[in-house]
């Protein structure tokens, strides 16, 4: 009998999903209670994850197809907290669009379950199962506001393209299996031999599939449309939680099965990173819709996290994880602001709608100011430190080209963030927005802004947490 404690969180969350589904079927008008129960379920899962796995150094289950180590537990906790906050600030938005149904929390829970499986996977098949579980839930979530044409379009587009990338991924997996004779990461790692050039195809296919999932250039085309079309709360979910999971898988793939083939993939990652940083910065300049802009900015941010991965050092991996954690906080804060732009049951998502916000809503504007400067990477805000750690790791490996291109693209990116600040602070004011926001929304905005603002006082804590992760 295996020791199942380590996957207790996954078991608990699957049971909760089943229970909530049954509850939804048998109880009328149960959306409120499902919402609250699912929040509770996530909370409990987080606690279990923390208790059962946080101190585990490395443990494998089911013929080594599932791995529990410091990286997986940390990333699961980030995923769960992200999911919790997304769910908790969604309710007003969903009620406005009359889509406050039981399916929403259940879908979020199942995609979180999929991600947790992905994060822990140490086997091609387990990994693929997790990936598909989270993707299926995400397709539905993208179309969740089904009365709106854009939302349906987003879901369909996401489904078609994502299925294509899954196909590529599977093909890559089958090639790798063919050469190594196993689906287990550790065994693959020992079997692979860089002489086999067809194997490179396998790796490239897998990397393409993964790059699609984190929307790295040139596999980013779906992101702006899907982000724009999906309901805002779902977009928030898209921009943070699946990225954390996909990044973990990325790290796991690169540094466990393919570690010996570093010469083959390092250039690919450097290319993806540079392309994402530059393209994300340049393409965001012309946007008028905030959600589209965030899509491009998140492409840029993924570029920076990939820069950390390209270094092939523990320090680089740690810096990527720090980057994504700070990015999660910043995006959460940004979307909380976006969800506050509501006037008489209508949400506003054009950049022009922010015009002169500072006159009527000084506090909200101040938060946006902090968040945007942080996203632009201006010290002493958290966003700067995120970039700083990444470039510190990159420069340690003497990858000057990557560092300089990355830093120059922050200057370009600063331009479009400044443009939003300009619109908020320098332009003429418009009508007031409603101020009766839910307590949770205010809470998430306040906490995340304070974290961003005051991160510089205690920068060591996050580093300490992350420094336990030693993959190589």
């Amino acid at each position: 009998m295996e020791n199942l404690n380590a996957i207790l969180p996954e078991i608990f969350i699957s049971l909760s999903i089943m229970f909530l589904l049954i509850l939804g079927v048998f109880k009328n008008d149960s959306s409120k209670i499902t919402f609250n129960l699912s929040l509770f379920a996530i909370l409990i899962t987080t606690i279990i994850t923390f208790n059962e796995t946080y101190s585990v150094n490395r443990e494998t289950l089911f013929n080594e197809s599932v791995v529990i180590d410091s990286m997986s537990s940390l990333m699961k906790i980030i995923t769960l907290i992200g999911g919790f906050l997304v769910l908790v600030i969604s309710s007003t938005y969903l009620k406005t669009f009359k889509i406050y149904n039981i399916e929403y929390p259940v879908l979020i829970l199942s995609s979180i379950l999929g991600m947790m499986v992905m994060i822990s996977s140490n086997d091609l098949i387990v990994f693929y199962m997790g990936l598909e579980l989270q993707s299926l839930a995400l397709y539905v979530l993208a179309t969740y506001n089904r009365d709106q044409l854009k939302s349906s379009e987003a879901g369909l587009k996401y489904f078609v393209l994502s299925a294509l990338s899954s196909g590529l991924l599977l093909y890559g997996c089958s090639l790798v299996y063919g050469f190594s004779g196993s689906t287990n990461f550790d065994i693959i790692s020992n079997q692979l031999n860089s002489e086999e050039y067809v194997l490179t195809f396998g790796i490239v296919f897998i990397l393409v599939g993964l790059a699609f999932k984190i929307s790295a250039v040139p596999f980013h085309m779906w992101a702006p449309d899907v982000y724009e079309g999906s309901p805002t709360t779902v977009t928030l979910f898209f921009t943070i939680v699946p990225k954390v999971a996909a990044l973990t898988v990325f790290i796991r793939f690169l540094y466990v099965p393919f570690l010996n083939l570093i010469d083959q993939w390092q250039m690919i990652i450097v290319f993806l990173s540079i392309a994402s940083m530059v393209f994300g910065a340049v393409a965001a300049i012309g946007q008028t819709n905030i959600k589209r802009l965030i899509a491009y900015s998140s492409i840029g941010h993924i570029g920076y996290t990939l820069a950390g991965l390209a270094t092939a050092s523990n320090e680089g991996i740690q810096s990527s994880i720090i980057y994504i954690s700070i990015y999660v906080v910043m995006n959460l804060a940004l979307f909380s602001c976006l969800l506050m732009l509501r006037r008489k049951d209508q949400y506003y998502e054009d950049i022009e709608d922010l015009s002169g916000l500072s006159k009527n809503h000084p506090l909200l504007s101040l938060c946006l100011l902090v968040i945007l400067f942080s996203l632009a990477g201006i010290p002493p805000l958290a966003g700067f430190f995120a970039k700083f750690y990444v470039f510190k790791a990159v420069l340690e490996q003497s990858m000057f080209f990557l560092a300089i291109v990355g830093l120059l693209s922050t200057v370009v990116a600063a331009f479009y963030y400044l443009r939003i600040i300009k619109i908020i602070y320098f332009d003429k004011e418009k009508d007031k927005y409603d101020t009766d926001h839910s307590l949770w929304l205010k809470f998430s905005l306040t906490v995340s802004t304070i974290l961003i603002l005051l991160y510089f006082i205690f920068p060591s804590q996050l580093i300490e947490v992350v420094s336990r992760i030693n993959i190589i």
Partner: protein
Amino acid sequence: MNFPILSSLILLPTIGALFLFFIKEKEGNNTTIKYVALFTAVVNFLISIYLWIAFDQSTSSFQFIEDRTWIKSFINYKVGVDGISILFIILTTFITPLCIISVNNSVKNRLRDFLIAILIMESFMIGVFSALDLIVFYLFFEAGLIPMFLIIGIWGGARRVYSAFKFFLYTLLGSVLMLVAIISIYWITGTTDVVQLYEIGIDVKYQNLLWLAFFSSFAVKTPMWPVHTWLPDAHVEAPTAGSVLLAAILLKMAGYGFIRFSLGLFPIASEVFTPLIYTLSVIAIIFTSLIALMQEDMKKLIAYSSVAHMGFVTLGIFTLQQQGIEGSIIQMISHGLVSAALFLTVGVVYDRMHSRLISTYGGLVSVIPKYSILFMLFALASLGLPGTSGFIGEFLILMGAFKDNFLVAVIASIGVILGAAYMLWLYKRVVFGKLINEDLKKILDLNRSEYFILSCLAAPILFFGFYPDPLINTIEVSVTDLINMNNTNIASK
């Protein structure tokens, strides 16, 4: 010294700004807000004066050092002052209260936010001048962009958005390369602590590239020709208090950076690149002086004169002579006072006439004599008349330059003449001549607060003009030591 005096200097304005944040802004009556801000700034000034008195002038080592672990086994929060930085700190704390008094007239809306921005700015600037760790320095150096961007963008004139963006992006572009250099230094030497770096030194083969990266940042901030173009735009569009901050303090960060980091960390590269700096400085002096002659906008004229003066500063620093560097530091302090004063004098007439064009004015001497006298003093100080602080700086710089390179010194001297030409011509057109513009007849002379501010600036300009010893004594040992360190470094190669 156990009391963290430097940290309190850095923190106090921020705490003041926090207090301001919680005071409600009332329409029309903002005295509480102003007094809180002024009180903070004045207390800070007094602390910095105490710092100067307690400062030991006989040693070049850093004093009042605070050293705390910040990011474990990587960066320490380390601050301290030596003879060079202490003067800049005092300049900062001296100019800020004057800025706050001057907002009476120039800032009409959102006064509270403006004062918050100024105070936070002060914190960052003091941080820049006292940081003894490259990364701490970078943090403060870059963070200053945020309040300045807002000051120009929110309270500026017609083309404020364009200027704010130009200012921000130019300086950010310059600085990111410096960040690459700082991280590289960390990997080369294993530390970013300036004091330790002075001792270990940096391998010669890296010095040139690193020097260039630092230069890219400092050149934009100084600003040196040809990357000076953000300065006139930013100056012209910023409100008076913003221009004063920009000219008096922000521009000094780069000059300070050149002395502290370029000379201190990369002595050999500094020697190598001296011709480059000479060329750019001389071009800046001559070229921008000529441009200044052609200006029709008073603020723009003063902005270009700032570029020319900063040209002298960079020239002086890289003469690597005792006189040259001392002259540069005094020139920076003096320029801080004089340009602040000039922007304020322009602000005075702008508040009354809402025009910065020289052609609007003429014959002011017959209606506002007090103003005209003070304006004359500042104009003369700007062109470096003996008896004003401007003279000491320029004279020492030229002395240093003559020792090092005769040709450069001769060309720079022509710049002095051009400087006299544009300043005197400006003064003539604004103050003398016939009073043609009818509106000018009703113009009021300086009010009490304006008179107070301008006298506060006039006093040190004259005092240090006749008696520069306090300044020179403070910097002497530090500069001598810096040069000795450079010479030994160069000799050993």
